[in-house]
């Protein structure tokens, strides 16, 4: 797909609120879609470029949300032996940074643990990890309030010394914050994938023995990808917490991971634009389906759509459409062999 597409899409997204006017419902849908799309982009880094499916990706998202919320709310918990940990509230922006770091650290542990063996282990470890983190959020009531939820989470305040500070309370401000962070994540992933490290990742995905034979450290490469991916999911979780300003253990719902998987697979895994396009389609689809369908029925549709896409367009929408467009164009030199996988935009 043309290099202009990402820029055109960014321009459209920047201008979109002007066209929508002050429609809070649509703006809210766009913000949540944007946050989940960041999660999908981070999932794509693992699923699309290394071939490892993190089916507990929501764990990193939720950890980000809880770390960020607790950092900015403060807590006072007893950790046993009569010891107490008391934390005074810190600014929400610090929470955002800590959330990213904490989720990345979890990604490191999970990666080191499960990349010892290949195969389905990473999938199973991540999905179980997500369940355990949910249990902790549910049961450690002193810290997380359990099902009562953490409430009154402060909004993110951006400020520069000498210029002043803005507290991002309105939907419009949050929209641009999410858009900015999303663009940043996109650029980081694009840079990473285009680098030597990105070639190592794709080499491992295509042919692990060959990659190992040229000196690529498989466990290290996969673990680094897991850390970056988890950190981005954590950042998305932090945005979610400070936007909604209330979180409960339902933030760990398995269905959110499935949404992200559908966004990546439908959009085109292993492409930079795939998760963005897939994210916009499947993030906004509930808005379109809401008047005609109950949420349970929507999930039946999503499951069926995932299967249909694997049947009809196994590589996803973005590669599928660009292949169609390429066929229409006047004949150019056609490569004899399928070239080594090039990153598609």
């Amino acid at each position: 797909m043309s290099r202009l597409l990402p820029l055109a899409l960014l321009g459209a997204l920047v201008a979109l609120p002007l066209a929508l006017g002050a429609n809070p419902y649509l703006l809210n849908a766009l913000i949540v879609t944007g946050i989940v799309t960041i999660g999908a982009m981070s999932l794509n880094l693992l699923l699309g470029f290394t071939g490892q499916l993190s089916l507990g990706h929501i764990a990193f998202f939720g950890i980000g949300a809880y770390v960020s919320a607790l950092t900015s709310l403060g807590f006072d918990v007893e950790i046993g032996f009569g010891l107490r940990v008391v934390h005074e509230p810190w600014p929400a922006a610090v929470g955002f940074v800590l959330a990213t770091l904490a989720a990345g650290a979890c990604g490191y542990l999970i990666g080191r643990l499960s990349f010892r063996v290949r195969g389905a282990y990473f999938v199973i470890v991540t999905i179980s990890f997500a369940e355990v983190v949910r249990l902790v959020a549910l049961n450690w009531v002193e810290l997380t309030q359990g099902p009562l939820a953490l409430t009154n989470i402060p909004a993110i305040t951006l400020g520069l010394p000498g210029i002043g500070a803005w507290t991002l309370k309105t939907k419009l401000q949050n929209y641009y914050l999410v858009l900015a962070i999303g663009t940043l994540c996109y650029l980081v992933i694009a840079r990473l994938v285009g680098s030597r490290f990105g070639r190592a990742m794709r080499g491992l995905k295509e042919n692990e023995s060959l990659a190992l034979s040229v000196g690529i450290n498989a466990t290290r490469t996969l673990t680094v990808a897991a850390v970056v991916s988890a950190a981005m999911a954590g950042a998305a979780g932090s945005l979610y917490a400070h936007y909604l300003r209330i979180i409960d253990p339902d933030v760990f719902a398995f269905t959110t991971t499935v949404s992200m998987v559908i966004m990546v697979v439908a959009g085109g895994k292993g492409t930079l634009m795939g998760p963005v396009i897939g994210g916009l389609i499947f993030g906004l689809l509930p808005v379109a389906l809401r008047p005609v369908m109950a949420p349970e029925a929507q999930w039946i549709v999503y499951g069926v759509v995932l299967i249909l896409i694997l049947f009809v367009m196994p590589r996803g929408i973005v590669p599928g459409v660009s292949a169609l467009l390429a066929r229409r164009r006047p004949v150019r030199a056609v490569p004899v062999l399928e070239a080594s996988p090039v990153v598609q935009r």
Partner: protein
Amino acid sequence: MDQLIQHLVNTLILGGTYALLGIGLTLIFGIMNVVNFTHGALYTVGAYLMYLAVAALGLNFFLALPVAILGGLLFGAAIEVLLLRPFRGSDIDTTMLVMIGAGIALQSGTLWIFGGVAKAIPSPFPEVPLQVGPVSVSWLRLFVLGAALGLIGLTYALINRTKLGLAMRAAFQDSDTAALMGVNVRLIYTATFALGSSLAAAAGALLGPVYVVFPQMGGLAELKAFAIVILGGLGNVTGAAIGGFILALAEELGAGYVSSGYRDAMGFLIIIAVLLYKPTGLFAKAERIG
């Protein structure tokens, strides 16, 4: 001491159904190389078929059980023929994504049809539990253990004593060579998936009357089945059977002596321990598939 004995008795009863779940999943993985994300949904389907047969149709409890198991068998066969057969030859990730789609559609389907309210399945057993010394066990749970052990025995006999089982073992070792020897591998795959699904449905139909039936019950069951399969070694039937009892023991002791809130976290701890110390599973050296 009395408490410990009670926990051990509970372990046996829970372990039987866990073993059923694990054997079904490990068979499908071992023979077909498919990570079955419909396993939990089929467990739920089994429980709801039991509920429909007993509560809605008024069928006899002991007749309803084989009906539910047969239903699971047919469901599994349909999933294999419609969704897995077209993807034969695709990589493991593609079939996994297909199974995730099917699993979420099935689970949402039960939620849509039956609603989110938990249902109870009436059982014909007396309310008064069997009291042996300090230990008390309800008759229903004893029946569940007996039925689970019976089904495990039947599965073993099927794998080790029948021609179908021989063909399954051959397909497990090398499907191409098995095909050359005249084994209809397509049929074996369908039979394997249907068998594994019926075992998941059986576990659901057996545990449904013990607890309650609700659409999300399969999610946790699926995670537990994964833990059992990793513990026993992917594709190892005996490992899965023993793994089921080990997980049940860990859960009972964890819930009894540590914290009941973290009962369901035991499976994850087991996975971590296995990956750290014996990534191939506890019983990797044992003979695989029967």
